[in-house]
C-alpha cells in the first residue's frame, strides 16, 4: 500500500524532478566553484597590484642607485667614518687631542678614559660614547684655539665640561670630552626596501664633515658594505 503510494507520487513528480535537479546543481556550483573562481580573481588582482607597487619601488630605487657614483660615495663614507668611527673611538680622539695640544704647546695631564656604556646591551647602529677627562696647561689663547679647533677635528667630540682657572697669561683647564662611535649597520634590508638619497640637510652635514681635520697616525678602517647576502652575518 505504502510502496504503491510512493510509486504513484514519483510518477506524478517525475516531470519536475529533472529541471529541479539542474537548478539545484547550478545553485550548488555557484556557491562552490563560482565562489572559488571569484575569490581567485580578487586574489590575483591584489597580487598584481602588489607586484606593480613593488616594481614602482624597485624602479625608483634603481634610478637612485644608478645616479650615484660609487667612487664619490665611498670617499664620502670614508670622511663620515672618520667623523663617527665604526669601532671604539678612544684612540682616534686621543690622537686628535694630543696633536692639537702639541701644536699649541699645551701640556696634557691627568688623562683618564671613562667608558660610559659599560654593561648596557647596545643594538647595532646605536651610538656609543667614551668620555675623556684631562687637564690642559698653557696659555689662554692657545687653550681657546684648542677648544675652537676641537670642533673642526675628527672624530666628532662634544665638550661636556670645561673648568678653566686663569692666572695671568696661563691657564689650567679641566676638560671632559665625549667621543661618539657606533658600529655600522649589519644588514642592508630587503631588495624591495625603498632607498632615499641624502636630503639637503644631510648633504650639508656631510659637507661639514668633509672639512673636519682627521687625526694623524691613526685612521679608522672603513668596512666594505655588505654584498650578496641581505644580512652578511646571517648564515
Amino acid at each position: 500500500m505504502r510502496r504503491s503510494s510512493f510509486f504513484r507520487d514519483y510518477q506524478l513528480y517525475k516531470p519536475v524532478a529533472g529541471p529541479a535537479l539542474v537548478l539545484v546543481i547550478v545553485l550548488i556550483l555557484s556557491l562552490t566553484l563560482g565562489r572559488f573562481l571569484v575569490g581567485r580573481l580578487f586574489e590575483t588582482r591584489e597580487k598584481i597590484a602588489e607586484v606593480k607597487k613593488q616594481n614602482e619601488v624597485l624602479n625608483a630605487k634603481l634610478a637612485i642607485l644608478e645616479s650615484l657614483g660609487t667612487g664619490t660615495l665611498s670617499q664620502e663614507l670614508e670622511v663620515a667614518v672618520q667623523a663617527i668611527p665604526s669601532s671604539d673611538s678612544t684612540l682616534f680622539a686621543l690622537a686628535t687631542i694630543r696633536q692639537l695640544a702639541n701644536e699649541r704647546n699645551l701640556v696634557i695631564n691627568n688623562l683618564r678614559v671613562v667608558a660610559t656604556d659599560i654593561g648596557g646591551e647596545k643594538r647595532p647602529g646605536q651610538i656609543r660614547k667614551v668620555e675623556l677627562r684631562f687637564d690642559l696647561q698653557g696659555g689662554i689663547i692657545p687653550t681657546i684655539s684648542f677648544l675652537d679647533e676641537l670642533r673642526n677635528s675628527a672624530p666628532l667630540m662634544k665638550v661636556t665640561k670645561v673648568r678653566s682657572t686663569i692666572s695671568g697669561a696661563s691657564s689650567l683647564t679641566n676638560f671632559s670630552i665625549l667621543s661618539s662611535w657606533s658600529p655600522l649597520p649589519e644588514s642592508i634590508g630587503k631588495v624591495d626596501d625603498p632607498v632615499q638619497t641624502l636630503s639637503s640637510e644631510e648633504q650639508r652635514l656631510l659637507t661639514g664633515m668633509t672639512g673636519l681635520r682627521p687625526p694623524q697616525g691613526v685612521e679608522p678602517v672603513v668596512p666594505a658594505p655588505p654584498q650578496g647576502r641581505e644580512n652578511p652575518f646571517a648564515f
Partner: protein
Amino acid sequence: MAINLLGKEARGPSKIEVARNVLTRTSAIFLVFYMILVVSIVGILFLFNRGLQSEESVNSSLSERVNSLKETEGTLLFLKNRVKLAREAFAQSSNDEIVGRIVSLVPAGAEIMEIVSEDKGFLITVRTPDSQTLVSFFEVIKEQGFPRVVLVSLNQTRDGDYLVSLEIE
C-alpha cells in the same frame, strides 16, 4: 459523483506541468547565466594571470639589477647612518663655541678666573679692576643676546677688584 468527460487538451495544463515548465525555464536561464559567468571569470583570470606573469618577470629583472648595485646601496645606507649620528654631535657642540666667543670678548683689564661649561650652559667668573670694566663686561654679555643670564655673585675684594660670577644659558 461528477465525472469529467472533457479531453486532456480541453482541460489545460495541470499544476505539475506548469511547475515543470517554470522550473525548466528557470534552470535553463540559471545554467546559461552560470556558464557565461564561469567562462567570463575564467577568461578574466587567464588575462590576469598573464598580466601577473609579465609583472613578475619585470620584478625579477628589476630585482636582479638592484642586486647588482648592492654595494652602492650598502655604501649609501652606511653614509646615511653616519650622517644621522653626526647630526646629534653637531647639534651638541654649540656651547663650546659660545665659551670661546665670550672669552675673546672680555674687555681689556678684566681677568677670567673660571669658566665651567656644562650641558645647559656655563658659569663664568671674572675679576675686573674697576666698576667701568665691570659695566663693559656686562654690556658685552648683554650684546650676545643670551636667553638667560643669572648674576650668581658680585663681590669686591680687599684690593678693590670686583669678582663677578654669571650663569649663562
